[in-house]
């Protein structure tokens, strides 16, 4: 049989298309598998106690991880308060002020920072904050997570601000409105939703971090509400502790806590996507 060039091209096309589909399926499949596995393992141990009770001594049944949830909220709150404004500020600098050369340097630095292993950031903050303050704290953990959020925030807000048409800035400048006022009152409101989306994604990313917390929050089996006063627990840390321990009750709680964490992150990401789509 004579295979024409046309048929061969068609076959190649079909093959490549098929390969792409398989890879796409694999990429999505991993997420579905993780979600499904965690849900299947954790959903059985999900109960009200998990959210309201403190950890009980090893080997005893019952108890919960309320202290970890509160700790996570405090730490992420601190991280958001530091990381979001600084990140948006950097994004404004990149999109509105930086020249070609300086902008490229800052952008490259941000990209490198995104790639720094989070445990290294943990050690860095340990040296910078924990050693100086003399104790582990929510503040140190918040700073570590803020550093992780920073480059994500900076790059996403730069992109969002760039999406605001140049004509908007020119309209404001031509009215004799100063540069900073133009950015504050015209550019940022126009990019509002995108900035919020970026912030949510950065928070979602930081919420799941564990490694930097080992060196900064340390973990604490009791409830701590103090920002600077000592070790504090976090959901991801509690999962790590419980999952690496030998007790099956703790394993179950680790699965349940993973369930909570992964669903929270999922919901935040979903909210961010929906926000962006509604523009």
């Amino acid at each position, binding site marked *: 049989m004579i295979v024409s060039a046309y048929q061969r091209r068609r076959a190649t096309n079909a093959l490549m298309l098929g390969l792409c589909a398989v890879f796409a399926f694999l990429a999505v499949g991993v997420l579905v598998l993780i979600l499904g596995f965690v849900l299947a393992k954790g959903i059985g141990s999900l109960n009200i106690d998990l959210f309201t009770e403190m950890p009980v001594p090893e080997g005893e049944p019952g108890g919960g991880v309320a202290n970890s949830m509160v700790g996570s909220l405090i730490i992420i709150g601190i991280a958001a308060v530091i990381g979001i404004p600084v990140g948006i500020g950097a994004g404004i600098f990149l999109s509105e002020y930086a*020249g*070609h050369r300086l902008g490229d340097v800052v952008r490259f630095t941000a990209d490198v920072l995104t790639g720094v292993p989070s445990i290294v950031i943990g050690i860095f903050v340990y040296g910078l904050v924990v050693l100086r303050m003399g104790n582990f704290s929510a503040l140190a953990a918040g700073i570590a997570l803020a550093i992780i959020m920073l480059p994500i925030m900076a790059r996403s807000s730069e992109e969002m601000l760039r999406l605001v*048409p140049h*004509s*908007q*800035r*020119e*309209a*404001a*400048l*031509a*009215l*004799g*409105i*100063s540069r900073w*006022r*133009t950015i504050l*009152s*015209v550019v940022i*409101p*126009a990019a*509002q939703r995108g900035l919020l989306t970026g912030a949510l994604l950065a928070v979602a990313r930081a919420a799941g971090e564990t490694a930097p917390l080992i060196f900064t929050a340390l973990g604490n089996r009791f409830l701590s509400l103090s920002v600077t006063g000592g070790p504090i627990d976090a959901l991801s840390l509690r999962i790590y502790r419980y999952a690496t321990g030998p007790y099956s009750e703790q394993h179950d709680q680790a699965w349940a806590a993973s369930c909570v964490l992964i669903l929270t992150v999922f919901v935040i990401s979903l909210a961010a996507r929906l926000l962006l789509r509604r523009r």
Partner: protein
Amino acid sequence: MTVDSRHQPEAAIMGYEMRIEHEPQAPVSEAEALAAGMVVRELNAWYGSCQALRDVNLLAAPKRITAVIGPSGCGKSTLIRCLNRMHEVVPEARASGQVLLRGEDIYGPGVDPVVVRRRVGMVFQKPNPFPTMSVLDNVAAGLRLNGFLVRRSQIAGTVEKSLRQAALWDEVKDKLNRPATELSGGQQQRLCIARALAVEPEVVLMDEPCSALDPVATLKIEDLMRELAKEYTIVIVTHNMQQAARVSDYTAVMMMAEDRAGEMIEYGPTRQVFTTPEEKRTEDYITGRFG
């Protein structure tokens, strides 16, 4: 190229319609433009190393409409953007020469471009109202964001006055708090004019203000321009020659030189430029031989 012979008034044959009521007969005097209008002297402008304007001279007569026409890419927009220092907003853009507003050089040392832009307003090619603001807030934006006025009653008064001047008040008075983006294209452009007028500029620049509009909206804006010319000095860039003939008192013609830098080849009262141009190139352009 021989310039001396006055060419036949071919432009009139081409059917340009002149509607100017109080048509100026004589060229504007430099003294007049110096006192109350704008004077451009030996203006050069660059984008990076690429020269966009070479030695441009122009007079903008007070309370008259000066049209700048010419083929695409000849530097019309660059010229008009130099008149309120918007040119330098583009990265790596710079300009040299003098642009005198009531005799003061706006490129002089120590002159704040922000102050210049308050005195010389601008309307752009595409209507660009602020999409996050209401109709009212758009008109008030120049006042509020400059920190000029604080009192609400004052803002309301200025907004109404500006919208009336822009012949838009009757159409929007019931939807002042609606988003500006709900207006039609022509209404949005008149809103942008009202927004520019609200800060009480001395000169209004219009960069092809009708090129994104339909014919009816275009005529409305043209009528509006004639109305505004009673109070404001107006400079308009257009590549629509009929429009220049219809609305302007004076016309400047720009062309691209060999190196793509824009040059001013003719300037005079509109009727003269369209009927008895001094330059052969002007005639070729307005009779449609090129451009």
